[in-house]
């Protein structure tokens, strides 16, 4: 993440530069100016990156951040606020709000809040999108997803199986851009199906601080319960294939 911020700086400078526009007037240009404080609602799956990814360009542009982070990563949220303070930003340039989702609509209604951004579920995005639209405020939403992993007839199956497993379990599967739907454009030999099952079964589950662990715990007990329910619901259909 740290190495991406200098790259972002270059990109931001380009994006924020004046754009000269040819008109009949002597000199016409578009200038990008900051719009004000914005509310950011971010998820727990990459608790630092999800925040720095929006906060770095927003602060470079001169906008002020108000972070409502996921409820299960409060110390990450406070640490991030502290990092921006230590980096020299004035008090108030970036603040963490330890709040639930209840106050969000009122905050978006406040005239001091210029815009919103959310990375999360479709449902949450719809709510924030509606809240922002009602007040004609800009909103940036990153929602989703259900990325397809497509295996074409020409595929090297061993490589496809290995990559499929990695693509599915990155960050314990807790990634918006992880492969979620596996679409196989050919008939797989039994050995390939068996090999992908075996690879999954052999994953080392354990303490996330242990370097040899490949799959740690999911983020919450609710996540386990809901995933277990999904698997149980789908299992009879899988077995029928």
């Amino acid at each position: 993440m740290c190495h991406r911020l200098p790259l972002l700086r270059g990109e931001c400078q380009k994006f924020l530069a004046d754009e000269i526009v040819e008109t009949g007037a002597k000199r016409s240009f578009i200038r990008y100016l900051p719009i004000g404080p914005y509310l950011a609602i971010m998820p727990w799956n990459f608790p630092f990156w999800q925040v720095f990814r929006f906060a770095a360009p927003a602060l470079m542009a001169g906008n002020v951040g108000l972070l409502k982070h996921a409820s299960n990563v409060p110390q990450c949220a406070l640490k991030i606020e502290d990092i921006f303070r230590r980096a020299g930003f004035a008090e108030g340039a970036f603040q963490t709000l330890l709040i639930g989702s209840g106050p969000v609509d009122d905050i978006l209604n406040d005239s001091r809040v210029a815009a919103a951004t959310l990375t999360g579920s479709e449902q949450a995005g719809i709510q924030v999108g509606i809240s922002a639209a009602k007040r004609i405020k800009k909103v940036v939403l990153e929602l989703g997803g259900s990325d397809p992993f497509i295996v074409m007839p020409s595929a090297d199956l061993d490589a496809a199986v290995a990559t499929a497993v990695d693509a599915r379990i990155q960050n314990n599967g807790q990634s918006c851009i992880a492969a979620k739907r596996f679409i196989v454009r050919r008939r797989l030999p039994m050995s390939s199906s068996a090999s992908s099952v075996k690879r999954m079964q052999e994953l080392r589950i354990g303490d996330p601080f242990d370097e040899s662990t490949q799959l740690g715990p999911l983020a919450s007990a609710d996540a386990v319960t809901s995933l277990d329910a999904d698997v149980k619901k789908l299992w009879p259909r899988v077995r029928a294939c």
Partner: protein
Amino acid sequence: MAIATINPATGEVVKTFDALTSLQIEQKLQLAASAFRTLRRTSFAERASKVMRAAEILEKRKTSALI
């Protein structure tokens, strides 16, 4: 949902936090508005250098659980 640090491997509640009151939210919004009045008058170069400083802080501590 409680605002809390919970170890997902064990279920242990490591630390809990109180949600901000309406008054505290109001104070933060005031502070954000006044911080914007200052920040908008700074240059891109100044703001970018502070973001780079944040990157350095992260880089220095990336191998430590204590940032």
